[in-house]
């Protein structure tokens, strides 16, 4: 797998010579032959590296597969990958580098919503197609952007009623104190109330909180039947450990939309994580042939060092393949034809099942899975096929407003 550092094809004609050059530079000067270029922007160092690493591996695998099967339109795909070092400024810098200097045909990347919002306008400005493949709060409405991760309507909607049937109606919500956590918490509340339950309280935690003692006491004081969690990141893992250490795991069970994203089932003791319910668009443990092949291929490449292969990894893999399919159908890697090809409702059978592009929202209809942690791994209990991105669909119609680029906060 070659990771090219940067383009050596410097196109001198496109270097903005005139001082009064128009601010929107149409990215037309791409070489018609030579490789098709795919840019990748993920954090490979710093706190977000644990999420970024499997996404890069999945990208590399997809590119390798396409190249080994003869490339795209007879051309090879060149992967240009930058480490954004968990630093927003570097997202902007490398996004400009990919769009303006490397002149890539497409970019896959971005992990947090903040990083996506930093780079999305850059790709719009420089007319570079963009795929965002992490699960997120929903609401991005942008014809230049395709969102492959699940949104709350796809997973929370399944998780909440399932858990409430199992455990009871009184729910306590804990979530990371940023947009994803806050919006997910709103969806949790909605689905709890839709299913006749009651939310006792909602607590938000900054990402650097490490001592959860007082919050655990508050939760106990409220006496919920269950806990819904959207906690995020390495520090928040401590919540589960302190929860278990207090002996509460068997008293008040937990369902989560984020537990397991950075490998919690494997890094926690079985006793600490058994019985936690989670819902994602993909689990490494899925036993379908496509899933097994995907996991085996990554493990073959990275051996013991392979991280947990999570939904963002699968979504990235599927996104790269679907983009390639769009290019093949369009007969060119140029942006608009590929977007139009994808908007015909292309689909791809990936490790998570069938993934279908929704032309109205540029999100995907995909399977959702519900699983329970058992002995340091996920045990997939339920499959909910073909979940539509209904949350974003409530606010976004790119057919009617093709020039919309808003990130909507969905009113619930």
């Amino acid at each position: 797998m070659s990771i090219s550092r940067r383009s050596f094809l410097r196109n001198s004609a496109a270097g903005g010579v005139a001082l009064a050059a128009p601010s929107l530079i149409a990215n037309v000067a791409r070489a018609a032959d030579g490789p098709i270029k795919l840019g990748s922007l993920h954090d490979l160092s710093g706190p977000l590296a644990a999420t970024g690493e499997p996404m890069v591996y999945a990208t590399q695998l997809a590119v390798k597969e396409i190249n080994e099967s003869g490339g795209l339109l007879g051309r090879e795909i060149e992967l240009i990958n930058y480490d954004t070092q968990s630093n927003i400024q570097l997202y902007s810098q490398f996004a400009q580098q990919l769009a303006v200097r490397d002149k890539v045909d497409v970019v896959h990347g971005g992990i947090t919503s903040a990083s996506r919002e930093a780079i999305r306008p850059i790709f719009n400005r420089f007319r570079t197609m963009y795929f965002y493949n992490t699960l997120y709060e929903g609401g991005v409405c942008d014809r230049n952007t395709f969102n492959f991760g699940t949104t709350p309507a796809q997973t929370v909607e399944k998780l909440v009623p399932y858990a409430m049937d199992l455990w009871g109606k009184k729910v306590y919500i804990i979530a990371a104190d940023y947009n994803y956590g806050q919006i997910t918490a709103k969806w949790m509340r909605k689905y709890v109330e839709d299913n006749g339950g009651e939310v006792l309280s909602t607590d938000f935690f900054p990402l650097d909180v490490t001592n959860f003692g007082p919050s655990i006491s508050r939760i106990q004081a409220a006496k919920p039947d269950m806990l819904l969690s959207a906690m995020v990141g390495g520090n928040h893992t401590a919540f589960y450990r302190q929860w278990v250490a207090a002996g509460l795991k068997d008293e008040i069970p937990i369902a989560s939309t984020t537990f397991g994203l950075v490998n919690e089932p494997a890094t926690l003791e079985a006793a600490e994580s058994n019985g936690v319910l989670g819902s994602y668009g993909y689990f490494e443990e899925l036993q379908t042939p496509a899933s097994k092949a995907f996991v085996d291929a990554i493990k073959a490449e990275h051996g013991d060092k392979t991280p947990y292969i999570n939904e963002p990894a699968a979504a990235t893999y599927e996104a790269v393949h679907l983009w390639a399919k769009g290019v093949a159908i369009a007969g060119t890697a140029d942006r608009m034809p590929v977007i139009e090809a994808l908007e015909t409702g292309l689909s791809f059978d990936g490790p998570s099942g069938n993934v279908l592009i929704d032309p109205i929202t540029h999100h995907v209809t995909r399977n959702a899975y519900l699983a329970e942690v058992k002995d340091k791994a996920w045990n997939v209990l339920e499959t909910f096929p073909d979940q539509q991105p209904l949350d974003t669909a409530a606010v976004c119609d790119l057919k009617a407003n093709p020039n919309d680029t808003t990130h909507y906060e969905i009113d619930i």
Partner: protein
Amino acid sequence: MDIAIIVGLDIISGIASLLLISAGLAVIFGMMKIINLAHGEFLMLGAYTTVLSVSAGVNIWLAMLVISPVVVGLFGVIVERCLIQFLYGRLVDTMLATWGLSLVIVGATTMIFGNTIVGVASPLGGFSVGQYQTSLYTPFLAVMAILLMVLIWAVMRFTRAGLIARAVMQNPEMAATLGVNPAKVYMATFGAGAAISGLAGGLLAPVAGIVPTMGAAYIAKAFITVVGGGTSILWGLISASGLFGFINQIAAFLTTPVFGEVILFISAVILIRLLPLGISGKFFKGRL
């Protein structure tokens, strides 16, 4: 009533964890008047040492209480010899060098062990106070914090090393004329500070999220606590941890963790404004 006990326990645990995460930094700041910005990474190394020892089959208590402090203490001595000793008297340069060191440690740990690592479970169960449950590990941490304070006090008060340490704290030049070799004292101090951080890291291992970047969550709080306390190692540390831990936990319980965090910071700002040399600069001048 039960809730009062539980909240009381939370406050004690908040204070104890501030004490533990700040103690190593306080020893180094109090004795050497330098700020070790790789302190968070020393904690992380302590946690990693415990985790790796346990997965290699070592008893968890042995790993936490012996192996972690020894390993990180030795690491501290190496760091002092190879880096810190060239920078004495240069507070800011030391901060930069130790910031660089922290990045190196995070990077090296990631390259060697990856982004995640299998943790260790809490070796103690929970217990009930009325209808509330809490972890036995919480009071255990508090006991360890108290023992650590007593240990530091006893060493400073009764041993020859402690006497020398106090002399160096008061007046390094004077101590040098009495035949004490400050270089050795500093090396030992840095090693001891690192060992304490290693111990704290080991103790946190069962209740913390263990990732290479975990140190970042602790360094700011430890830094603020130590500076808020001032240069008297023991009393400054105890008073600042007590004050900040109390305010933080009460606010977090009554309102939200965000507010708990913000109010901790605000009280630190006000405290330093009122006592520009830290608490101990005002009330415990010249004491341990």
